[in-house]
């Protein structure tokens, strides 16, 4: 392929954002670019940014759909603060993304879409391509729509079909820009549209036309290259957080020898987990789409009673609805996992945006003293391991576990080193053998305090459990005051003892010093990037990031106590900092919060940390 004439600039990383109308196929375009990124061997992370409405009015800001990818020659932990390259398929997608690009970003626009009508829909009074407002940027004017039509002219498609593949024109241009080949993308067309040769041909022609156009017009003074990242040896793939979550559960089901049962109700941004599990009946995984959130979790409790590895998935409002039933699982001491893919709240809030504001609800949002294990996945790929660990802890400790992920992890994707399922830790369900003369429903394991699991259908173990308070050991219903207090304490201690079965915290940077940055859950990538960059710049700052929230790792206090100041960064008003203050009141805490439905930017974190270091 002829792109030798330009200068090639080597970059450490680049952020590309594809933006268009929600019907323009920007997610597919982004994913195809991602595939080519994987082949090159870069590390990467992505984030889709799409409207809550399925088909918002065409051409308007609210209808803009975007896909951002950050790829580099080193480890990449975030999808990038600001884009270096923006593809804007219409005026609205340009306007919507002006705050999300660097000051010197390259902007590829479809000039055909900058009509008076579209400019008006986007709320532009003058044409930004003409009025000088884009100065500082390299704007690549490309009549994408008309050239797409030309490329497929003799295929005799109707006007609408002829324009459909215009996203591939843009992709062709970006592939050229980064010195990539298009062979693999064409292979994708051939597989995807196997039975539609005309569609294959149209997409192929348009893709190549875009590639050649970029070459011919010499739009880019130079092209770019990002070298492969020094990733660990092995087999890789791309995963979104929701996909990784679903697969983590399937792996835990296989490894535990228990069939997977998912009782769930569709809710953004958690539905993909339900959709994924529903595909895998070959593993005896049952996905039950219930009539509401409550039936979702209660069927899960039923399945757990009957001996399944039982899980339910939801997002914030759904977790609220499940509260009473989580209490039932606490009382019956049955293993279930509740996944809460957090989104902006309260109420319906920001369904497609991300937040970390369900932490207190996860920890305490139930009547009575109702402790559960709470875990928070750290990254899209980590969702696999978090789901696996949540299952293991639930089963082996006979307790509900709440696994918190969030909208950014759920839909964002990153590189995933594929493990062998056999290499994952063993899961040992505490199932009681038939006719065990020693069996009592609430007799506990001495170490874990977990009761044992007597599965219906097993001879000699008939018993009743339920939401009423149970007598210690026998499980008979009793309102005895001292027994109640004893059981409350036993349930609490059972969860606290899980601290013996989870890893200790590890610190990035020095183990002691002036400033420790603390985060939990989905902010890991951006916090780590900020800390790595600051440390490269010679700053003394350390990071500790929590995946285990209840119970906290055993060395938490020890780690915190080695620093003069602790900055807790969260996408909420300060829920984790208050939890830490409650548990370890002696430390000197500071907080940094962002509640905009958006992840932190590396730059703003660095600015905040620098200001503290300079104090």
């Amino acid at each position, binding site marked *: 392929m002829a792109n030798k004439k330009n200068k090639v600039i080597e970059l450490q990383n680049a952020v590309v954002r594809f933006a268009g109308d929600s019907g323009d196929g920007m997610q597919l375009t982004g994913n195809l670019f991602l595939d080519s990124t*994987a*082949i090159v*061997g870069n590390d990467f992370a992505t984030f889709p940014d799409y409207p809550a409405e399925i088909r918002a009015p065409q051409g308007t800001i609210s209808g803009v759909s975007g896909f951002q990818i950050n790829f580099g020659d080193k480890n990449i932990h975030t999808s990038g603060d600001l884009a270096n390259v923006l593809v804007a398929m219409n005026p609205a997608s340009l306007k919507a993304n002006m705050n999300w690009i660097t000051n010197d970003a390259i902007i590829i626009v479809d000039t055909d879409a900058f009509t008076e009508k579209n400019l008006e829909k986007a709320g532009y009074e003058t044409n930004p391509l003409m009025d000088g407002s884009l100065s500082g940027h390299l704007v690549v004017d490309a009549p994408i729509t008309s050239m797409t039509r030309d490329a497929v002219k003799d295929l005799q498609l109707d006007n609408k079909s002829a324009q459909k593949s215009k996203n591939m024109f843009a992709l062709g241009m970006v592939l050229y820009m980064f010195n990539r080949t298009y062979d693999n993308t064409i292979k994708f067309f051939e597989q995807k549209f196997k039975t539609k040769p005309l569609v294959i041909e149209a997409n192929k022609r348009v893709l190549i036309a875009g590639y050649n156009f970029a070459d011919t017009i010499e739009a880019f003074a130079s092209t770019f290259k990002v070298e492969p990242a020094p*990733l*660990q040896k*092995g*087999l*890789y*793939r*791309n995963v979104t957080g929701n996909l990784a979550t679903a*697969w983590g559960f*399937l*792996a835990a089901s*296989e490894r535990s020898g228990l*069939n997977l049962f998912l*009782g769930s109700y569709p809710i953004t941004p958690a539905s993909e987990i339900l959709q994924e599990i529903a595909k*895998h*009946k*070959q*593993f*005896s995984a*049952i996905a*039950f789409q*219930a*009539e*509401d959130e*409550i*039936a*979702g979790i*209660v*069927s899960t*409790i*039923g*399945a757990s*009673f*009957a*001996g399944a590895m*039982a899980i339910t998935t939801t997002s914030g409002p759904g977790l609220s609805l499940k509260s*009473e*039933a989580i*209490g*039932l699982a606490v009382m019956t001491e049955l293993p279930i996992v509740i996944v809460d893919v957090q989104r902006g709240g309260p109420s319906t809030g920001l369904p497609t945006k991300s937040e970390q504001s369900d932490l207190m609800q996860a920890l305490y949002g139930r009547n009575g003293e109702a402790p559960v294990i709470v875990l928070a996945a750290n990254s899209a790929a980590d969702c696999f391991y978090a789901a696996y660990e949540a299952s293991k802890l639930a089963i082996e400790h006979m307790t509900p576990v709440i696994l918190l992920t969030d909208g950014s992890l759920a839909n964002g994707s990153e590189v995933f080193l*594929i*493990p*062998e*399922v*056999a290499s994952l830790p063993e899961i040992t369900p505490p199932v009681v053998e038939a006719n065990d003369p020693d069996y009592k429903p609430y007799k506990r394991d001495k170490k874990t305090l977990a009761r044992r699991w007597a599965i*219906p*259908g*097993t*001879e000699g*173990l*008939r*018993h*009743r*459990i*339920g*939401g*009423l308070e149970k007598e210690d050991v026998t499980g008979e*219903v009793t309102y005895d005051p001292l027994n109640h207090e004893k059981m409350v304490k036993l349930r609490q201690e059972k969860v606290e003892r899980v601290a013996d079965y989870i890893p200790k915290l590890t610190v990035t940077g020095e183990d002691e010093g002036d400033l420790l940055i603390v985060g939990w859950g989905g902010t890991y990538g951006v916090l780590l990037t900020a800390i790595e960059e600051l440390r490269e710049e010679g700053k003394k700052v350390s990071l500790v990031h929590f995946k285990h929230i209840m119970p906290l790792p055993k060395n938490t206090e020890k780690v915190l106590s080695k620093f003069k100041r602790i900055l807790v960064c969260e996408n909420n008003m300060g829920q984790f900092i208050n939890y830490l203050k409650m548990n370890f009141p002696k430390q000197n805490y500071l907080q940094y919060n962002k509640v905009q439905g958006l992840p932190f930017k590396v730059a703003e974190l660095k600015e905040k940390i620098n200001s503290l270091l300079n104090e």
Partner: protein
Amino acid sequence: MEKVIKTPELKLTKKDFESDAMVKWCPGCGDHAILKAVENVFPVLGIPKEKFVVVSGIGCSSRFPYYMNTYGVHGIHGRAAALATGIKLTNPDLSVWMISGDGDSMAIGGNHFIHVVRRNPDINLLMFNNKIYGLTKGQFSPTTPKGAKTKTSPQGTFEAPFNPGELVMGAHGKFFARVVDTNIKMMTQVFEEAAGHKGTSVVEILANCVIFNNKIHALITSRETKEENQLFLEAGKPMIFGKERDKGIVLRGTKLEVVKIGENGITEKDILVHDPTTEDSGIHTMLASMMPPEFPAALGVIRSVKSETFEKAIWNTVEREKKESKLKSVDDLLRTGNTWIKE
């Protein structure tokens, strides 16, 4: 009627199912008789005792699982249908019994009730309808007659009640029966039929709350009036009732009507013959709707239609997918789609 194949060597008795928990329903409560009837039925179904699971929600009726020596879950208010569904889907081999009341199944659990009926898992749903909230001490329920004075309706209720049978029909239910708590023999017979039916079998039990709604079903159940007000339906038999067995039900135009045999030229041949197996639920709905004083209350199995169960449909698909899928393990799954090797 499809019956579970009996294995005589099991030889279970009532004793096998009596738990040692003290039964704490009020003396004179209809629930005692229902418990007796269930204890009659479980030993004769040919099912090993460890395969029974009794689940419930909240309410007086929902204490039931504690009184049966089986596997059992006493759940939360209104959600027993979801518990039962999760259990049955996980292990279709279990005989799942759901015990509920009119508050539990018609109010807080109304949504779950219609959906479990619609999905048709093979569970037996016994709904104790005493038309009142008993455990919370006397508030009206969704089946309380309009205008009835209760603790929360001191001037009488302002709302029309549900008829559970109509909800079952509306949700395309496949089995609906009605019995009275005053007739253990009738309950035993109908529960056995419900157990034999593959699919969700809803049995409405007209139950008496001796404390908060005493004699609410008296027209149907009292010694003096029951024969005039009970129509016990049997498949293939004409719908005849009354002390003298001289009254019957006919279909006139689009409506049911009570007629007297021997009057106006009516003979037994004119009387409607019960067929619980018709897919069309039109007549079944009309039968379920009949109430005294205009009509007798229809008792017995009103509707029993064969249909594939929810769990069977799902597990058949599991078996097929196991054979047909290229994915034999999660390792295979993790390696689907685009993967690349880093040397």
